[in-house]
């Protein structure tokens, strides 16, 4: 045999396949490919063709998978099994960092030691190439990127093998991802009975391919390859009509089917774990017995766990299994498009096969959102940026209420925090935890955080004393559009702890008071002893260029201020809402009542800004916890205009 | 706690013996230098296992009976599996059998290291616990923990975890390890072998209270191997019955005024099970390394006569099983199938295995589907209980001259020599009212 020219399409006889594996190994790569283990074709280390599932395939149906033996000698005559490649570029558990805290309260943060393996993926299907493409958008599409993913991805060479043996659970044809290989591979193979049609997709792939002993593929071979692809396509058919699926699905948020699915759904998380694109994670800390050194670890999580959308003090935004299933399905097939510009589903069928009770998304989609019309959605430009903890020192502690303190924090790094944008920071304490906290004041060399003890981490944070250290991320999220309020009247409505993130708005307005029209500040708290910033509220109230109203829900007889809900502070006011912008923060129900009252005062949804409360874990839109409709609250919010949120706002179980 | 009553009568009472598995009390009454009453009382709550397994499938019974005792779950699993395999006439693959010995070896090393170092050694060295012992002799306790860890690691590899492992089933295992997984344990086991030698040398220097008596030792006996889960039930005075025929030589009997089921020979005599019995009845089958070590320390006679020297027998068995485990690993080839299939049928059979504390005997009767119709479980501690009380009676006069607290500690130490596992003994619960 002679080497074929670059432009020709090569053919590798089956006997030469071991050479390909060896070349990949010689390239310093661990080869990961299909192998039989525990009754399935999984992805594991491949040293020899004998490790491949020669002559073995799998029969698949909803909730069902069994190995079957073929008459032929093919290595890749199976449809995708339980493993997906995400495991290798996005590990199930990953040490993110190591931190220390000594007995004097000094803290330090460092990266976890990391080794990025040099891998070759062997036997990647078209649907799986598409899945990697989707993960690329999620992790590398910005504004924040996952550098670990980037490194693993960059260190991987992809040998794709075109699918000829689809399963009964496949629907790549509907999702437009397969079965034909189009892009994303370094080397592409088409397996025929006698060997492989070989093409290179990248220079890296070409470097390997040129070292193989290839014949030129014959016309018959090329035809056979095309025929088997066409046959595969025909076998799959078009089980899901995707035209207009985005809108059809989102129009059915109140379908009774969600509750019916929940009767079957185990919320076991298997679909999300098997899915090649699901990317939700949680982060926890493990420490030594004394809490001196801790490791922060990220692990795969799932929107099907109850804790996933849980917030402090027992709140949960998706309490029912039907809420979680709806979240998963609508995200995968609709809001994913709004966020990332593609569907989140590649049609590989893993969630169907590996659902222990065989729930079939194809069937559910067709029942919930029967066919047909148009889809949409542009992607955003990427801005690589990764947050890292900086050490801050507690300069002052002011007790606000029995369970709330304001910490004044400074950093020696010289950044002028008074101009830093972003709405909140991730505050971490080694061996204790990390929580998102809104910035309640920007200082020239630091900031203030007002923290209420509602969970284990905040309980420790509220007990810190002057001199203690904490780790802070850079400010994250989209904050209040205060500049947009210049030349307008401003209405600020806070409830409970919600006054804390609003305080920087007041600071900013007061710094250039003349640029704004009338300014009204309304604040409601539970009882008089829960009122934050009492002295500042009094100082603001004493000014003649601010209107300040404070009310509490209940009080004893010694309280001479107002008692009642916060909306009563302004629902009969005489100001003209049509000239005002409103900034609202507080518990979700308080925001709802406030928004209704503001609408009654003439404010339109585009001029009402609210801050959403959700479970925020990573702070940079990569863990999935804080998803609401098409948004990640941490990255796209937490401040949104009501117009932006549309009917996502106030919907149960979103 | 001890109390002195009348001038001529002394009573030793330990409410809640410590450093034993489970809950029991010790009560002794002495009249004019003569022991009038000696009782080891169990107040462990009854858990009705023999009834709980009725109607259950054999593999479920293996998991359920393990919960009788968290210290020796493998013993329960192996004895139960043996009984069912006898009923269903299942042939066990030799490699699977070797793996079962290896799993059991893990339990011996763990259980014996726990007893020698954490429970019993503090008695010999004058401490209240291994934690106190560690303050003065940290290296000693660390050596014990290291040995224990190796035993646990063996069980965790073969069974998934050391307490209530999940891998055993009728016919074999659910899952067997790859050779490389076993080989990975070799360095730790080789190190453990050295530490086991050191353990034996350590305990050989202990001072055992002088107390010697003749005793009937009962154990399994196999023609070719150190007794574990096969062979016959024998004694050093002529008992020799099939492994399924425990009832042909022994019985559980009730004592007047109590509801306790104590085991006795058919002629109503007490007997001793456990490490001293095995080392005495099967010394020639110890691993050569252990045999040599026994010759070196020269305590074979003491082990046979003085119950306090059971600590040496235990140390010897740790050494034996470290050596045997290494051999099994070296010879291991994964079996063709992890378990042999079997067909359920109606039948009945008994089977026993040598738990670390002695023979644990199960008997089951099954229906046509293989579900359990009736069960009998005879744990080692209920068999040893009569001998413990007899020893207490015989030993007590020797400590009467000692200070009361010290005398009581000696009596407790004697009870601990049997490593009584009271959790196992639930079904011989003694509820005699104190003073009745």
């Amino acid at each position, binding site marked *: 045999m002679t080497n074929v020219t670059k432009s020709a399409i090569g053919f590798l006889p089956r006997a030469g396949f071991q050479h390909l594996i060896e070349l990949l190994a010689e390239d310093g790569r661990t080869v990961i490919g299909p192998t039989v283990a*525990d*009754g399935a074709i*999984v992805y594991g280390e491949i040293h020899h063709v004998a490790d491949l599932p020669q002559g073995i395939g799998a029969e698949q149906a909803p*909730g069902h*998978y069994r190995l079957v033996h073929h008459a032929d000698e093919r290595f890749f005559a199976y449809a995708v099994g339980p493993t997906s490649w995400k495991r290798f570029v996005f590990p199930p558990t990953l040490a993110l960092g190591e931190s220390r805290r000594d007995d004097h309260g000094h803290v330090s943060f460092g990266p976890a030691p990391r080794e990025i393996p040099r891998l070759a993926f062997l036997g990647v299907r078209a649907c799986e190439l598409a899945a990697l493409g989707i993960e690329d958008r999620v992790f590398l599409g910005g504004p924040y990127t996952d550098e670990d993913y980037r490194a693993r991805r960059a260190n991987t060479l992809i040998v794709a093998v075109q699918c000829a043996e689809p399963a009964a659970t496949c629907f790549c044809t509907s999702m437009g991802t397969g079965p034909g290989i189009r892009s994303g591979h370094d080397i592409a193979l088409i397996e025929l009975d006698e060997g492989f049609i070989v093409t290179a997709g990248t220079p890296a792939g070409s470097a390997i391919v040129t070292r193989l002993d290839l014949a030129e593929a014959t016309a018959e071979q090329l035809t056979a390859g095309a025929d088997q692809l066409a046959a595969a396509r025909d076998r799959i058919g078009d089980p899901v009509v995707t035209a207009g699926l985005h809108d059809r699905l989102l129009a059915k948020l109140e379908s009774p089917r969600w509750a019916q699915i929940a009767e079957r759904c*185990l*919320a*076991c*998380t298997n679909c999300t*774990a*098997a899915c090649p694109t699901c990317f939700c994670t949680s982060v*926890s800390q*493990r*420490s*030594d*017995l*004394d*809490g001196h050194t801790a490791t922060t670890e990220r692990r*795969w*999580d*799932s929107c099907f*766990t*109850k*804790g996933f959308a849980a917030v402090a003090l027992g709140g949960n935004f998706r309490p029912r*299994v039907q809420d979680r299933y709806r979240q998963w399905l609508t995200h995968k097939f609709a809001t994913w498009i709004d966020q990332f510009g593609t569907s989140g589903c590649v049609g590989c069928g893993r969630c169907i096969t590996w659902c*222990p*009770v065989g729930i079939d998304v194809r069937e559910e989609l067709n029942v919930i959102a029967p066919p047909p019309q148009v889809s949409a959605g542009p992607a955003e430009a990427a801005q690589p940026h990764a947050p890292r903890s900086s050490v801050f020192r507690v300069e002052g502690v002011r007790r606000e209420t029995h369970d709330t303190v304001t910490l004044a924090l400074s950093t020696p790094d010289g950044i002028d925090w008074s101009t830093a944008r972003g709405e909140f920071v991730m505050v971490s304490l080694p061996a204790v935890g990390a929580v998102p906290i809104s910035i309640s004041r920007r200082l020239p060399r630091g900031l203030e955080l007002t923290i209420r003890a509602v969970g*284990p981490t905040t*309980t420790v944070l509220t007990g810190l004393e002057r001199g203690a250290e904490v780790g802070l991320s850079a400010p994250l999220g989209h904050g209040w559009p205060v500049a947009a309020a210049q030349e307008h009247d401003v209405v600020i409505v806070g409830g409970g702890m919600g006054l804390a993130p609003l305080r920087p708005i007041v600071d900013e307005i007061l710094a250039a008071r003349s640029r704004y029209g009338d300014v009204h500040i309304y604040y409601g708290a539970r009882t008089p002893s829960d009122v934050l910033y009492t002295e500042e509220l009094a100082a603001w109230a004493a000014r003649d260029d601010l209107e300040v109203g404070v009310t509490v829900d209940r009080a004893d007889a010694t309280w001479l201020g107002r008692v009642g809900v916060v909306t009563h502070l302004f629902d009969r006011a005489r100001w003209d809402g049509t000239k005002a912008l409103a900034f609202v923060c507080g518990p979700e129900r308080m925001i709802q009542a406030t928004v209704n009252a503001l609408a009654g005062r003439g404010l339109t949804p585009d001029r009402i800004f609210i801050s959403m409360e959700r479970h925020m874990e990573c702070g940079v839109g990569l863990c999935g916890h804080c998803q609401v409709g098409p948004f990640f609250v941490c990255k796209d919010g937490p401040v949104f205009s009501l117009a932006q949120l549309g009917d996502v706002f106030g919907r149960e179980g979103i | 706690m001890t109390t002195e009553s009348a001038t001529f009568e002394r009573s030793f009472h330990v409410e809640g*013996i*410590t*450093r034993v598995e*489970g*809950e029991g009390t010790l009560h002794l009454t002495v009249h004019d230098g003569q022991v009038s009453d000696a009782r080891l009382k169990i107040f462990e*709550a*009854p*858990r009705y296992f*023999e*009834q*709980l397994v009725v*109607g259950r499938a054999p593999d*479920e019974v293996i998991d359920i009976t393990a*919960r*009788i*005792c*968290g*210290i020796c*779950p493998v013993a329960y699993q192996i004895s139960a599996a043996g009984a069912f395999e006898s009923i269903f006439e299942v042939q066990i693959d030799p490699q699977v059998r070797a793996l079962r010995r290896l799993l059991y070896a893990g339990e011996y090393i*763990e259980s014996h290291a726990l007893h020698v170092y954490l429970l019993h050694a503090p008695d010999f060295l004058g401490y*209240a*616990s291994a*934690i106190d012992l560690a303050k003065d002799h*940290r290296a000693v306790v660390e050596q014990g923990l*290291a040995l*224990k860890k190796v035993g646990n690691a063996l069980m965790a590899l073969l069974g*998934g975890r050391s*307490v209530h492992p999940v891998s055993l089933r009728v016919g074999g295992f659910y*899952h067997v390890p790859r050779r490389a997984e076993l080989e990975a344990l070799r360095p730790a086991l080789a190190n453990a072998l050295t530490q086991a030698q050191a353990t034996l040398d350590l305990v050989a220097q202990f001072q055992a209270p002088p107390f010697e008596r003749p005793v009937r030792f009962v154990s399994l006996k196999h023609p070719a191997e150190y007794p574990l889960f096969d062979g016959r039930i024998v004694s050093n005075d002529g008992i020799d019955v099939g492994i399924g025929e425990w009832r042909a030589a022994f019985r559980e009997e009730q004592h007047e005024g109590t*509801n306790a089921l104590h085991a006795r020979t058919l002629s109503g005599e007490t007997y001793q099970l456990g490490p001293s019995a095995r080392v005495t009845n099967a010394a020639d089958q110890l691993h050569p390394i252990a045999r040599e070590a026994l010759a070196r320390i020269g305590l074979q006679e003491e082990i046979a006569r003085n119950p306090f020297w059971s600590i040496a027998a235990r140390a010897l068995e740790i050494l034996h099983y470290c050596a045997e485990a290494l051999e099994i690993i070296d010879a291991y080839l994964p079996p063709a199938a992890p378990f042999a299939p079997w067909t359920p049928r109606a039948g009945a059979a008994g089977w026993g295995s040598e738990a670390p504390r002695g023979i644990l005997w199960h008997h089951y009767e099954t229906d046509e589907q293989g579900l359990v119709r009736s069960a009998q479980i005879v744990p080692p501690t209920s068999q040893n209980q009569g001998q413990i009380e007899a020893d207490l009676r015989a030993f007590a006069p020797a400590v009467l001259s000692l200070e009361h607290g010290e005398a009581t500690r000696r009596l407790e130490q004697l009870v601990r020599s049997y490593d009584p596992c009271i*959790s196992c003994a639930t079904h011989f619960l003694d509820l005699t009212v104190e003073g009745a």
Partner: protein
Amino acid sequence: MIRAATTPHPRLGVVKLASCDGCQLTLLNLEDELLAIAERLDIVEFPEATSHRSNGPYDVVLVEGSVSTPEQLEQIHEVRREAKLLVTIGACATAGGIQALRNFADHDAFRAAVYAHPEYIESLATAQPVADYVKVDAELRGCPINAAQLVELVTALLTGRRPNLPDEAVCAACKRAGRVCVMVAQGIPCLGPVTMTGCGALCPGYSRGCYGCFGPREQANVSSLSRQFISLGRSPQEAGRLFAGFTGYAEPYRDAIVELGGLPGASLAGERAHRAMGAGVNAEGKS
């Protein structure tokens, strides 16, 4: 217990009710941490390990076992009074354990079957989890408990935070570990989807189905899973027996067992279980 240390260490007690001792043993099995823990905590009561005894007070007490005799009932109230934090460890303490299966059946018949003179045996009609009688501050599930979770609990106690014990299905850990689903790929019934993780998805890693050591997770959909067991070819009784393990008395496993009629002596079980569950059947109805 006498300590030379000058700073007061938290006082730890370990007490036992009806159980197999395996969870306490898990503490002694922390070979790498045991001595370090003993240096940071005063172990004032742990009869399995030390002859020092204490009736309290305790900063933390770990309780193993279920409440199944009148004495234990008294004891658990006493322990609660003496303990600042009471942590139940293991399936017996948190769910009643295997012995709680007697709660489904007729207690007297059970007793008579094992003991010739049942009148001498003093035990409550049922074996109950500790939380049925006293307030429990935290729990470690499992039969036995998991060593890593125990270390996490101790670390949390020492560093003053809440232990991190996620409530998710065994499946989540199983998939992270890269295991192949035994139910889908081999048709083996597995309680993983309805069982709380903590064991590290041990059984599927040993080619068998989860048997529920850690008990039901939140919102466990046992009826959907039992339907699936039946469609895999198991009889309702077999499916019921799968739930009737070491946490079978915990809801909603308990309901599934009764509904499927899977416990031996089902005729007894039905009525008895209804009584145990307070379904309003006359308590004198049968004994």
